[in-house]
């Protein structure tokens, strides 16, 4: 197990390195530069020269890349505020050793995942760490601060959308599978295809027009907002006011994202559930006279959930990078919007930082998904 995780982490590092080389090269090859907008001011030429030298843009591409990489992995600030991180890490390491050495059951993966999640959470809560991700070329300051100032908004939107999609999508898929070819199943299928095939831009703008503009005109009550995460007077609101204001801003963008994921989860869950429902062991369970609810929930659902784990894990990874289009449509202050702005202004340090954060997220979440496979399916072994 430990060897498997170590091997996967090494592969992950190689993948991330390759990703960084490809993206950096593409950024360089795509034409244009961060100072192009200054070019059309005839008095700015000396200033452009000054910045070009200061930011190392006059260096060969390979040198710019190595400088970026060296900075990216350099710790700029590191401070441990108390003994908790050390205790947590050492404790987790000892627990890992003991579990691997003495327990060795199908639950090993679950134990390790749980222990290390808690340990890392406790450790990160009690340390300050910053990497030297450089300075934004567009004057937006330190890239580390810039990226992490947006993650809260992205997580808020992403997790809400994910929760809506999971809470509705999975039961929907299960119900469709149990009632295969029923009117509800057909309706669900049509709805899922509609959600899949409608561009998110249309869904987003459509929701804004109907729910935020016309609904207010029809009812005279402002239920939802077109854009933003909070109203200008948010800091002065009461707790109830804040919750209501947040819900009024969050609902439409979260539904936009959730609709598409929800359709995906429902389709996957339906297909996966149907496959399991038609399997021999399920037939045996039914023949033994087990109640239908027990057959479906205890015997079918657990196995049918396995493919969904991968889907959800990857969604969580992509969520870290933000919902680029949705955040732009709804003026949501997340990482996705920052990313699109950085691409537009050829702000290499910001683009690279976000790409790598997404990359790291995908590598880690893939690993988590594989470990969860083992948890959900005892036949899976890590060699």
């Amino acid at each position, binding site marked *: 197990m430990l060897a498997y995780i170590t091997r996967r982490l090494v592969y992950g590092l190689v993948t991330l390195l390759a990703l960084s080389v490809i993206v950096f090269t593409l950024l360089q090859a*795509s*034409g*244009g*530069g961060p100072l*192009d*907008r200054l*070019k*059309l*001011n*005839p*008095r*700015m*030429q*000396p*200033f*452009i*020269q*000054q*910045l070009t030298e200061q930011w190392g843009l006059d260096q060969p591409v390979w040198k710019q890349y190595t400088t970026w990489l060296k900075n990216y992995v350099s710790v700029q600030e590191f401070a441990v505020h108390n003994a908790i991180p050390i205790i947590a890490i050492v404790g987790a390491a000892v627990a890992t050793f003991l579990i691997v050495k003495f327990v060795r059951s199908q639950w090993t993966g679950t134990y390790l995942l749980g222990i290390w999640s808690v340990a890392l959470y406790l450790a990160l809560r009690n340390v300050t760490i910053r990497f030297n991700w450089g300075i934004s*070329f*567009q*004057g*937006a*300051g330190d890239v580390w601060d810039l990226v992490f*100032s*947006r993650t809260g*908004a992205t997580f808020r939107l992403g997790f809400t959308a994910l929760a809506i999609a999971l809470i509705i999508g999975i039961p929907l898929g299960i119900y469709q599978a149990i009632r295969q070819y029923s009117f509800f199943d057909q309706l669900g299928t049509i709805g899922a295809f509609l959600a899949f095939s409608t561009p998110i831009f249309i869904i*987003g*703008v459509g929701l*804004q027009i109907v729910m*935020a*503009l016309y609904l*207010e005109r029809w009812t005279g*009550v*402002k*239920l939802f*907002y*077109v*854009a*933003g*995460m*909070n109203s*200008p*007077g948010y800091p002065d609101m009461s707790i*109830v*006011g804040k*919750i*209501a204001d947040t819900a*009024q801003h969050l609902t439409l963008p979260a539904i936009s994202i959730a609709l598409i994921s929800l359709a995906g989860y429902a389709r996957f869950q339906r297909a996966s559930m149907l496959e399991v429902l038609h399997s021999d062991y399920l037939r045996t369970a039914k023949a033994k006279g087990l109640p239908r609810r027990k057959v479906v929930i205890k015997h079918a659902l657990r196995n049918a959930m396995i493919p969904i784990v991968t889907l959800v894990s990857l969604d969580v990874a992509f969520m870290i990078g933000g919902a680029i289009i949705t955040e*732009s*449509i709804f*003026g*949501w*202050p997340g990482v996705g*919007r*920052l990313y*699109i*702005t950085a691409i537009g*202004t*050829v702000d290499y340090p910001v683009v690279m930082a976000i790409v790598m954060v997404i990359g790291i997220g995908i590598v880690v979440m893939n690993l988590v998904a594989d470990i969860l496979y083992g948890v959900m399916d005892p036949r899976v072994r890590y060699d």
Partner: protein
Amino acid sequence: MNTLWRSRKVTFMVLLIAFALVAAACSSANDDAGGTEETTTTTTAAPAEETTTTTKAPETTTTTEAPLQRPYGGEAIVGDAQEPPTLNGFVPGGDNFIVGIIGQTYAAGVYEIDGYTLELLPELVTELPTVANGGVVVNDDGTMTVKYTIRDEAVWEDGTPISGDDFQFTLDTIMDPDLPIGKSTYEDIIDSVAGPKTFEYTLAQPTVLYELLFGEILPKHAIEGTAFEADWNETRWVSNGPFKFESWAKGESVTVVRNDNYWKTDPETGQQLPYLDSITFKFIPESESLITAFKAREVDVIQPDPNTEVIETLQALEPDGARVEVLSGPVWEHLNFQFSDARFEMNANSCNEDYNMRLAVAQTVDKRVLTDEILAGQVEPLESFVDAFSPTLSQEAWAQYSVDNGAAAESYAKAVEATGKECSVTFSTTSNNDARVKMSELFVGMFEASGIPYTNELQDSSLFFGETLDNGQWDLGEWAWVGSPGLSGLVGIFDIWDPEAPPPDGGNYYRWGVEAEGAYSDEASARFAEVRDEMNATVDEGELLALINEGENIIADNLVIIPLYARLVTAAVWDDEVGGFKHNPTQAGHTWNVEFWYRTDI
């Protein structure tokens, strides 16, 4: 039965709580409104008393007619597609349009651009220095001294008087070699003297570019000792404008609140400015969403991307209380020719070196069709680039060329004969700009009508404004420049044809007159270089105007470029909510007179 009752009871309670939550959510908008009203009432009360106090003096001296009064209090929400990367207008990123737009609420400088006349007006100083008022003196040794007299009443938000030391500190900061700040004309300052309410500096040679110096002043007492590049990106130093910085919710909004120490009063009402309590700039990057937010009255003022569809959509809201201002702006689109040999990489049959070929293009391109098709006839075609930002000084030097397909065919034949080539035109511009794409489509028919071989080679803006422009690898190009009002703006724009300044050190992307790059240098370009040098060495208005006219004529007579049209600028405001709004088509934008805005609904 008991269980059933309990279950119903629980269901009832759940429904009740759910209803309460929904009601809370629904009513929060009303609460907001209520809250605002309450705040408004409270805040109105205080300034209203002040108003009474301030207006008492005029009452004793004037007629019995009640003076016009504006209400104090309330908030305006301005929607904008862009978010500032930094709040520091001096460092990289500070040149973004939105930084200046927000900056006008808390930053004042020597001058401001009047939205009605497009003239420069004094802001922090008692009057703008000129030769006529003695503020500008050309010295015997060929240097030029400029003197500002700072308004006595001008103070920072903390009450500290704005002094000559602040001007000196601003200059020192700009000239700090360790700071990434554009120096341009400041580099020519060779001496300066700061007084309590005066500041004087000497430039190495006379130049009218002094007009646009010190557009923003730094408070020495607040900034000295800080890391200027790093410390002021997310917050602001003390304000000397009508508002002061309050907060920046990254990715979402910037809020500014009233500066109680602002010195300016409204000449019409005699009231202390500003009228509003606060302004929030809300960032909505998607233009569709920005318009929807305006329609839903989530924002009071917007300056959207001014395409004709957007303008029509906004104009449809006028019966409901919106006011839409559509103006011709200082950004002017132009056709241009590349004169260096690098153009052959785009078109081996380019004949730009031949005047008749350029004339054929001028006789082919119907600017009226362009403005009608692209801008729905909302602007007139440009007969001079000067029209775009200093219309009163324009000579309409390009009016000598008119559309005539027959004449174009003749000119083209002459070019073919003179060059011995099968001359053709390859048009390049940015492919991610709808108006320009439409232009390229219209050109196909126009050139076909003149019998001139024509192809489109559009490029993504990052490529076009990158390598293509740097290396001069285009034949017939199209993009826009931004003009600034005043003589300094006109003199400044002539830099783009400076034969001595091709990229990377200069901005003459056309390489007109740049012999070193294979482009021809002739009598006209040589004379133009002289004219430009003379322009940059005089502050005599009469002399300058003559030189500007001569320079414009040289560019027009030689068809170095063909001005097409000025871009539209538009802004919309809910007139039944925010009064005092007037759009400014220059870089000053829609917030230039923000201190005069007031709520019309309180």
